[in-house]
């Protein structure tokens, strides 16, 4: 049993607001840049998916929007959820600074085709991501309790360590070309480890904590989630190695199939959590996170159909549509939903927590402008579906047009998140 007394609450679990908030707001800015950039750059992906502007856009999303948001959220939530403390808060500030500078340099390096920026930015990102991963791994592993979410996060942090190093290797290969014809295989491994291992496992792990908490979905067993974790951690490295080392096609199909089943298993488990919820009304911020696994299912089924029926070549229009559904529909929308829950929580905790019992304080949802969030939800989802169709049909003009509602949604969400600070 724990005793809460005014002089002895969970020591050290509260960290300065500016650490997570800086990362979360930087992530929101990156999301706006991504949204606007996609209108002009995304059509380029049809002709050359590895064009430098396309890579700049992709890394604005993965390293900018998503990873910055995840880092900010993990700095705040891991200590609270695991009832522990961050081991070294000053180190976290250093890490944040290195990471922000690194991402700006790296994306600029892609955009302006400057190898010096690419190499220096990539190196800073690797250093900062390593500091982050080691710091969080230590924090989690020394915590008194390690629930299912913590196990997912441990795995995802290990994938983060791998993916940034694969990425730096790929970036340096741009300049020196030491990988020769096998460069594209490294790219496939980088994609699998980054999208599936780092971002995917983080989103899944966080869902196992936040969905039951926000929707009051209490279940007696988490065994299914543990089973999925094992399957995912067998299939993800298996697929990355098979693709990266040019393994036999049968092996790629086998581990890819296991991965697809595990991801669909998560969608099923997510649906079970929602069915078990006691809070019937799903607020608009949660709607983003609830809609997201639908795109995961859609992306996995489309990808499986492409492989099974040989519908497309690598980086063809159907694969681009699949990647878009998984990246923006699942990962992006999950991040967007959780961002709109976490920022109000941080601000509320800083501003109002000490006033409970003294005066009437606002609820978390009072800090968000709900009509704006609702509009953003429909613009985002309409835009994502339209964009996936436009990519699949390889229509450049439609791709640009479909990117507009997505950009508007991201701008509205960013305004709403910044607005939380002033409510």
């Amino acid at each position: 049993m724990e005793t809460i007394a005014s002089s002895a609450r969970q020591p050290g679990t509260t960290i300065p607001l500016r650490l997570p908030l800086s990362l979360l707001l930087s992530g929101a800015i990156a999301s706006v840049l991504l949204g606007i950039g996609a209108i002009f750059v995304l059509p380029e992906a049809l002709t050359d998916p590895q064009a430098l502007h396309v890579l700049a856009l992709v890394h604005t999303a993965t390293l900018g929007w998503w990873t910055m948001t995840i880092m900010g959220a993990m700095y705040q939530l891991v200590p609270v959820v695991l009832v522990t403390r961050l081991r070294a808060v000053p180190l976290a500030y250093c890490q944040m600074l290195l990471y922000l500078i690194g991402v700006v340099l790296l994306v600029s390096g892609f955009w302006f085709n400057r190898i010096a920026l690419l190499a220096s930015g990539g190196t800073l990102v690797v250093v900062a991501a390593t500091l982050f991963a080691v710091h969080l791994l230590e924090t989690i592993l020394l915590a008194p309790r390690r629930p299912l979410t913590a196990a997912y996060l441990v795995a995802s942090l290990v994938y983060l360590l791998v993916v940034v190093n694969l990425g730096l290797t790929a970036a340096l290969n741009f300049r020196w070309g030491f990988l020769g014809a096998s460069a594209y295989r490294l790219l496939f491994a980088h994609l699998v480890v980054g999208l599936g291992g780092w971002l995917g496992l983080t989103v899944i792990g966080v869902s196992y904590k936040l969905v039951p908490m926000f929707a009051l979905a209490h279940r007696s067993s988490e065994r299914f989630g543990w089973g999925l974790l094992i399957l995912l951690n067998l299939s993800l490295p298996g697929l990355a190695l098979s693709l990266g080392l040019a393994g036999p096609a049968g092996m790629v199909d086998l581990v890819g199939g296991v991965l697809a089943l595990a991801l669909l298993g998560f969608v099923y488990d997510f649906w079970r959590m929602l069915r078990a919820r006691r809070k019937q009304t799903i607020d608009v911020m949660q709607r983003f996170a609830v809609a997201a696994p639908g795109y995961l299912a859609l992306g996995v089924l489309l990808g499986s159909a492409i492989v099974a029926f040989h519908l497309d070549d690598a980086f063809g229009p159907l694969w681009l549509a699949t990647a878009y559904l998984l990246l923006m529909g699942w990962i992006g929308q999950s991040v967007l939903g959780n961002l709109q829950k976490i920022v109000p929580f941080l601000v509320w905790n800083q501003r109002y927590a000490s006033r409970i019992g003294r005066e009437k304080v606002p609820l978390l949802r009072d800090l968000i402008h709900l009509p704006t969030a609702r509009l953003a939800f429909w613009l985002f989802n309409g835009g994502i579906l339209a964009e996936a169709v436009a990519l699949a049909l390889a229509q450049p003009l439609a791709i640009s047009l479909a990117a507009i509602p997505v950009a508007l949604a991201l701008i509205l969400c960013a305004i709403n998140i910044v607005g939380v600070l002033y409510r």
Partner: protein
Amino acid sequence: MSQTTQVTEAEVLEALKTVYDPELGLDIVNLGLIYAIELHEDTVHILMTLTTPGCPMHDAIGVGAERTLKQLPGINHVEIELTWDPPWDPSRMSQAARVALGFA
């Protein structure tokens, strides 16, 4: 539950109804988070839980309850004891809370 001060358990419960879970918008009494109340002289001891272990509102709710109870006449000491045994279950909620959450 014992009762040896001028404050009654009912008054303690009434006071705790002003402490809200800011995510759910429901007070901690109607949510069924209060397991036991013990009153002894100028001390009140509360055995309570939260809807989920590792709830980010852990400190805010616990300290809010403590602060609220200290405002009651004759209460100088407040002990808030947090337990996960038994874990909170939605069946502990009041009818009003069920209606508010839409599953009554």
